[in-house]
């Protein structure tokens, strides 16, 4: 008399994959909520410095970004390791810092009249940049009266 089941009469029931789309949709919603549509491909390497007294910026649509840092590996052959400025999708050397004025003016034109006083410029600079280029950028911003700025930093405790 066998006390064991005779062979395997039934196969293992197939794992129901009915909830797989649900899991994927949850991941999808997570990404939709937490990320920002990347508008520009960075051509320069940026590792922002960290600080404790940082605040989240609101009104994302009224922020113009200025990226400052050394070019990425693939571009270093063209431009060398000196820090460059990226506006939208073009990079400039420190000597061409005057381009910032045109950039700000065109960003301003694209915004609604009543939004213009609320525009801020976010300076996203790599931590190894020296202050010379930053000060040049700030001087150009002052020339076009873009006075609200924000230094982009990561939060540390």
């Amino acid at each position: 008399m066998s006390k064991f089941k005779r062979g395997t009469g039934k196969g293992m029931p197939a794992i129901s994959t009915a909830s797989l789309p649900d899991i994927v949709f949850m991941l999808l919603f997570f990404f939709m909520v937490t990320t920002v549509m990347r508008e520009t491909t960075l051509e320069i390497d940026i590792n922002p410095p960290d600080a404790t007294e940082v605040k989240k910026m609101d009104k994302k649509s009224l922020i113009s970004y200025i990226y400052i840092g050394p070019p990425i590996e693939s571009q270093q052959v063209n431009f060398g390791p000196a820090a460059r400025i990226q506006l939208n999708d073009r990079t400039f050397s420190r000597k061409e810092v005057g381009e910032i004025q045109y950039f700000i003016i065109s960003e301003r034109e694209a915004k609604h009249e009543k939004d213009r006083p609320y525009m801020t410029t976010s300076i996203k600079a790599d931590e190894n940049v020296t202050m010379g280029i930053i000060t040049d950028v700030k001087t150009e911003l002052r020339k076009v009266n873009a006075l609200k700025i924000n230094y982009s930093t990561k939060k540390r405790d």
Partner: protein
Amino acid sequence: MARREGGEINAGSMADIAFLLLIFFLVTTTMDVDTGISRKLPPMPEENIETPEIHKRNIYVVLINKNDRVLAGIGSPTNMIEIDGNGIISESLKEDVKKFVSNNGRSETSSENPDKAIVSLQNQEGTSYTMYIQVQNELTKAYNELRDEQAINDFGRKFDKLDDTEKKKIQEIYPMKISEAETKAN
């Protein structure tokens, strides 16, 4: 034409559609850093307009030189602020700024009141951005702590927890007057 009994839509391809959308979002978006320290730049000085004289006692000068050493003091940067082995600034900068801003005329060599007290931040060509941000951080911390203390005093809650009108009142008592001067020559 007989309808198929109990016709169900095959949901097997739902997962494929979901994966495609997910990959699309993964590729096109970035988790961008959107935090930072806000500042207001001074407007360009116009020709022939004299800037008003500011008494030495009302300016706290912080100078970061090209070797990343921080010097600070009222009227002129005389004291060296210590930086530990990891490059972190000592608390003395924040404490000095707090004492300077909240002096309210008590000491003759320090500021008359927080509204007139200006912190002037100067740097040189070769100063590193990291040290500059650290100093900005300490200055912001000094003002934030003063504002928190005032908020707890006046309203019993920290500054972040106040509503807009209360925040304005505290901001009027301790306006953040951090002036960023031009880079001095090397």
